[in-house]
């Protein structure tokens, strides 16, 4: 399997800066509703990338990150609307809660892999959903929690957009550094073969535990941002569907590419908006995307792109 590096450093930095510049222009070029769509893309891209940290780099596909994401959203909204606290403390608490959940999930899940890991995280996500759904006195049950939690100075759409852009860029950078650090390389080794790494003397469970917790941290951050964006949370936010959509974003973009999360989120959210304009059949389109991607392009858009680039490079080199 090719290493997750297909371009030279200056080229990559150049592309990153170009993307940032493009994104910075958004509120001036496509204002109003479309800007809020891009905000959504950025938030969910963070969620997708957090899933990719685990799936792409450690080889563990999870179905509970939507729940971790939503836990942060709930905590932020609860802290501000019910407990009357400050939004920033709310964010701190939200991210802490999400990370704590990730720690608990990690302790249970690191002994498993493959399909069992998938099912276990599914069950854990269901437990979270069940709690949000039935524990009406705290979570509001079916009614959810609602109220504007974003601080007033951040509320204007353009200001909020840049806030999210800056935070997301920072998160992306941090995640990228994490994935390409020596720790991240060890994770990739674990993805290839648990037993080999163990034989080489690496503490595999510890590495997986840290990876899970870190990915939970980023998912929680995305969830806190979502609270600011949506001003509303309900059991749907922690439902299995949320984790599934996040996973699909990773897959469409390319598992193991990290930036695939950005691409996947953009594609899925854009498609959803376009398709929903003309028809109610978005779930069918989503399902077909899953099927087609699994059969024809399991490495996703970026993955395919990188493979093609690598092929061309090899051909030129020889």
């Amino acid at each position, binding site marked *: 399997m090719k290493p997750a590096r297909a371009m030279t450093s200056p080229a990559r930095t150049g592309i990153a800066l170009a993307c940032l510049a493009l994104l910075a222009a958004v509120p001036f070029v496509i204002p109003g509703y479309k800007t809020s769509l891009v905000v959504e893309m950025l938030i969910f891209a963070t969620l997708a990338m957090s899933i990719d940290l685990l799936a792409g780099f450690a080889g563990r596909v999870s179905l509970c990150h939507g729940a971790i994401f939503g836990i942060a959203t709930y905590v932020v909204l609860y802290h501000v609307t019910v407990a009357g606290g400050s939004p920033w403390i709310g964010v701190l608490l939200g991210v802490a809660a999400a990370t704590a959940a990730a720690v608990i999930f990690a302790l249970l899940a690191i002994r498993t892999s493959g399909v069992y890991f998938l099912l276990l995280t599914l*069950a854990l996500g269901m*437990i979270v959903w069940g709690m949000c759904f039935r524990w009406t006195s705290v979570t509001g049950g079916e009614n959810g929690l609602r109220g504007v939690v974003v601080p007033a100075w951040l509320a204007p759409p353009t200001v909020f957009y840049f806030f999210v852009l800056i935070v997301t860029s920072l998160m992306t950078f941090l995640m990228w550094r994490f994935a390409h650090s020596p720790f991240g390389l060890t994770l990739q080794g674990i993805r290839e073969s648990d037993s080999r790494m163990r034989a080489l003397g690496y503490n595999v469970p510890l590495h997986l535990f840290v990876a899970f917790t870190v990915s939970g941290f980023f998912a929680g951050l995305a969830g806190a941002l979502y609270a600011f964006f949506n001003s509303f949370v309900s059991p749907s936010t922690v439902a299995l569907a949320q984790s599934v959509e996040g996973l699909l974003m990773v897959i469409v973009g390319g598992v193991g590419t990290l930036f695939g999360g950005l691409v996947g989120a953009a594609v899925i959210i854009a498609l959803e908006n376009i398709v929903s304009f003309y028809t109610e059949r978005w779930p*069918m389109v989503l399902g077909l995307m899953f099927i087609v991607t699994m059969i024809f392009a399991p490495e996703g858009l970026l993955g395919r792109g990188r493979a093609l680039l690598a092929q061309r490079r090899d051909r030129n080199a020889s």
Partner: protein
Amino acid sequence: MSMTVFQALNGATFAALLFIVASGFTLIFGLMRIVNLAHGALYLMGGYIGLVIASRSGSFMLALAGAAIAIAAIGFLTYTVLLRFVSGNVLRQVLLTLGLALVLDDLALVIWGGDAFTVQVPEALRGPFRLGVMAYPKYRLFLLLFSVCVFIGLWLLLRYTRLGALIRAGVDDAEMVDAMGIDIRHVFIYTFMLGAALAGIGGVMGGAFLTLYPTADSDILVYSLAVVIIGGRGSLPGTAIGSLLVGMLATFGQVWFPELAYFVIFGPMALLLAFRPLGLFGRAA
């Protein structure tokens, strides 16, 4: 009738439905290691097809047979057309079935709409069965009986037929069976069809007292997962015990800890997956 007996009956009859659906799931999971996340969608489709047949023909038996055949056919197509592209990669198979579930669900929505439908049962099965002061729905008692018959039928199949022997051998060690020269692929196809048919039958049976509605598929899928994980991969008695456990937990959970109702079912499932993934009765491959 004492409340505990009443609730126990509720739990047992719900378990009866779970068993029918979960047995199909565990056959597929046990033999082919495929977590068929479209199993719930097959249940719902089967229910809708049975609904149409029952209302047109007036025969519940015909509805059951029709649904079984139709869903077995969908199972056949799923396996031979879709799953073969991703054979060998378990994770991709799982995610593909997830996509299929989304598609089937939406298709059902387009065809039958958002209302909740009840499959018509014969007059003889409607209303309560009275014995002294006790009154319990006739249909649910019938479901219990039916489920026991399904269990016996499957057990006989596994024990005394060639296909059953191959399935059992394959659950234990599919590679070995293949190495012995037996065309394991045919066994896979028949098993997938049988599993799907069971889901379809479950849909008709469930549709008669729980109604059919757009999210019924994920409801039943999630319970089936819990049953199969708790009872053990590929084990028929395990599935029966798992169904009873989950059925009882679901019922008594609603009564005793309504706020923790889901935790009571998924907590054990999560713990088992973490510490004993083979479940109570599964055996190592």
